[in-house]
């Protein structure tokens, strides 16, 4: 995947909303062999399990069942235009819902790191439109006891920690955020 992504909401693909509330939209991206692939952008109608105002935004090609495959690897011809289109769809949605947040999952550590690079590289541009946050999850360690070393972690007790992302913040790859959150800048 390309690293040199330059986000520009004036240079996007033609986005087609698929629902009136702008939760689902689609556009066609040109891939390296010259063909077109349909990409769908979809915002969850249910908030995040631990963050009541955060709604997940997923994107990718759809499978035969019409479901987004957010792990698909596609060689896009213009990554800048793809990511600008995805974020423009999110920005449009947020303009009617300034109290909501949109969350984008990295789906794996490598991809999360890449998204963070995109975000930092385009920080000045994105900062005009969004407040941006990174989220990590922390798991409770249970009280000491005889079973401590079997499994001291209580995975039913997970706390989200959110940091405001600032320009130039350096995070090493294996400590990367799990999730990136966007709010319309007031």
């Amino acid at each position, binding site marked *: 995947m390309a690293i040199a992504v330059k986000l520009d909401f004036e240079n996007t693909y033609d986005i087609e909303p698929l629902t009136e509330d702008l939760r689902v939209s689609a556009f066609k991206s040109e891939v390296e062999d010259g063909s077109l692939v349909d990409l769908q952008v*979809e915002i969850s109608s*249910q908030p995040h399990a631990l963050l009541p105002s955060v709604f*997940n935004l997923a994107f990718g090609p*759809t499978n035969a069942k*019409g479901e987004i495959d957010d792990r698909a690897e596609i060689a896009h011809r213009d990554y800048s235009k793809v990511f600008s289109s995805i974020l423009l769809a999110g920005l449009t949605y947020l303009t009617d819902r300034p109290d909501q947040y949109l969350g984008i999952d990295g789906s794996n550590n490598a991809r999360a790191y890449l998204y963070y690079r995109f975000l930092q590289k385009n920080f000045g541009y994105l900062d005009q439109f969004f407040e941006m946050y990174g*989220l990590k999850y922390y798991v409770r360690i249970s009280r000491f006891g005889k079973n401590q070393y*079997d499994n001291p972690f209580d995975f039913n007790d997970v706390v989200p920690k959110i940091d405001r992302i600032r320009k130039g913040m350096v995070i090493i790859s294996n400590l990367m955020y799990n999730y990136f959150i966007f709010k319309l800048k007031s």
Partner: protein
Amino acid sequence: MTKSIEKKIAELKAKARRVGKTGVKPSTAVRNGSSLHKIIKTQEQANAFMKSLRSA
């Protein structure tokens, strides 16, 4: 926000109004939401995680 971006947003909203309610079913990726749902869920996964920590 520039006038041209405001115009693009307004056009997108106008297109959406014309679409109406189509009842598109949410995708699995959206329903699953964040990676919170992809982390350890079962005792077996927790044990495997602990084993990997001890051997690290």
